[in-house]
């Protein structure tokens, strides 16, 4: 008898999951997933992008998951408020807070919203979706907490440059370099949003990993906001003044070898590029 009751529960739970996803804490894209313009951690005028930037002017923006509105900053702010209009923050029961920055709130927004319930319209500029892990005091990459985008084309590797002093050379197969410390610049890590988002960039020299950048979460430190890679790394460590990803102090000893760049994207796929170099 007990067994039959348990069997009865299975279709009931499946029914709940199918028709009432919000009730079981389902997480949804707050905007169309193809509207992503800039990923988490991208360079934004000298700062890390703290979330996913979307471009979808006038489109409805919805709640990532069910939660409670805890902050609204809009044109009705009392005089003397700290600037920052168009911000809605939700608190979720699983220890996360989600922020929707740059949106026009719907007038009849209620304080308790379900996942997928619309919050407002995207403003005329990009709007930014952020997720904060309150317990751990970190801003996390939303892409890791959203339904996966397996249909996105894989990442592509842009131009890679070798730099020392005033010398700046495009990397190519069979290139000859002098031994010593080099700066390796990786261009166009982030595409225009038409491809999957890279979440880890690694550099290998003769099979040994010599550098790795992972964009999982950022936190406060004495030096400001740092990316946890997992060691804290500042913006200046990851990006050069032009906003390009760079690996500094890459030591190349004399000899022949292969330099390999690997990009792991949001779906777990790895794309790599390699170049045979002669260092002497």
């Amino acid at each position: 008898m007990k067994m039959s009751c348990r069997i009865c529960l299975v279709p009931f739970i499946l029914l709940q999951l199918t028709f009432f996803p919000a009730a079981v804490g389902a997480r949804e894209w707050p905007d169309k997933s193809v509207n992503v313009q800039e990923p988490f951690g991208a360079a934004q005028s000298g700062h890390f992008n703290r979330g996913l930037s979307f471009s979808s002017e006038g489109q409805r923006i919805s709640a990532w998951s069910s939660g409670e509105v805890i902050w609204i900053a809009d044109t009705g702010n009392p005089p003397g408020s700290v600037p920052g209009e168009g911000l809605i923050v939700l608190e979720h029961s699983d220890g996360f807070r989600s922020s929707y920055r740059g949106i026009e709130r719907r007038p009849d927004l209620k304080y308790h919203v379900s996942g997928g319930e619309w919050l407002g319209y995207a403003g005329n500029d990009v709007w930014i979706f952020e997720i904060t892990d309150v317990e751990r005091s970190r801003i996390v990459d939303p892409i890791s907490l959203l339904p996966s985008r397996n249909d996105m084309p894989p990442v592509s590797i842009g131009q890679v440059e070798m730099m020392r002093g005033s010398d700046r050379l495009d990397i190519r197969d069979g290139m000859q370099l002098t031994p010593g410390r080099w700066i390796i610049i990786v261009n166009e890590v982030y595409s225009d949003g038409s491809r999957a988002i890279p979440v880890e960039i690694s550099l290998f020299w003769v099979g040994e990993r010599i550098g790795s950048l992972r964009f999982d979460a950022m936190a406060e430190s004495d030096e400001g906001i740092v990316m946890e890679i997992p060691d804290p790394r500042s913006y200046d460590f990851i990006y050069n003044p032009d906003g390009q990803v760079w690996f500094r102090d890459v030591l190349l000893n004399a000899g022949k070898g292969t330099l390999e760049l690997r990009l792991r994207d949001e779906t777990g796929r790895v794309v790599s590029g390699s170049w045979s170099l002669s260092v002497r």
Partner: protein
Amino acid sequence: MKQRGVFLIGLILISVYYFLFPRGSGRELIITPDSLTSLEPTESSTGFLPGRTLAISSGSRAGFVNDDHELISFYSSDKMAVDDHWLAVSGVGGLDLLEPDGRLIARIPDSSFPVSRNGNLYLYRDDAGVLLKIDPTSGRIMWRMEYISPVTVLDGRQGRTLVGLLDGRVQLIDDSGKLLLGYSPGGSRVEAIYGGALSSNGSKIALISGLEPQRFILLEERKNGFRPVAHHNTKTNFRRSVPIGFVRDDRQILYESDGFVTAVNLNGYVIQTIELSGRLVGWLDNLMTDTLILLGREKDDVIVKILSRHDLTLFESRLPIDTTGILRDRNYALVIGSDNLGVLEFSVQ
């Protein structure tokens, strides 16, 4: 015996009359309309003469008036902050820090929002969580902070800056960038800071924090640092910035409540309510004979209310719907609208 009874009853009646019935003091508060000035953006200094200037701002416009409340200059920008001694305008090339006469003090290559608080200048970039304090006399960056949480409260007095954050933290920072206080009130289901103010000498901090319950907290500086000295539940659950401030020489704290204003008298920690229609959008204190002026905004109305030193209503009236704020200048109240500046003179006769 009968005469004595009549005398005693008469004495009682006189005492009752003397102590209970109000008497004219012979001094009355007179409010006289003084002038009305049109606020037209000039974008440059016009008719500037050396002398005292008073900063005015209305929405996305700001500028200066002279001693006679005549408009000297008026600027328009979405990112602007103004003080009696400077104006900060954010543009494409960065932030221009200007003298009241329009002369450039400094150009700062930053497109953040400028914020003015009691003579202090801050730059806040909300999408990056970056807060800078700027020396308004030179444009020098005094300190820089980066936060993972939105800044919800910012106040500055006596070389101290109060920062409140949506994650429930409060910081007090001195002009060298040293953290004087790191505090999290706690005690609510949702931790967040919704309102905060520093007293004029920087030794007291009033806060509105949390949801369910939303709480008022007063911190006071003692020998061994800041300590919470009073708190109570506000019976509100605002999910936006809550106006709060010290008034009457720091003897009273005002904050917005649901449909009224709560006044906390620090002498004895007496809490009282002041009726005010709509949301609290501004106040003026000590204009004349310890009066307090409150500005409230309802959907289609702006209400001004003048209170006596005992918080009794002296005057209540509607103001034009485009009224955005109210300022004090000596014994004048400047009512700022989106297009006009109205000046009221207060006197006692």
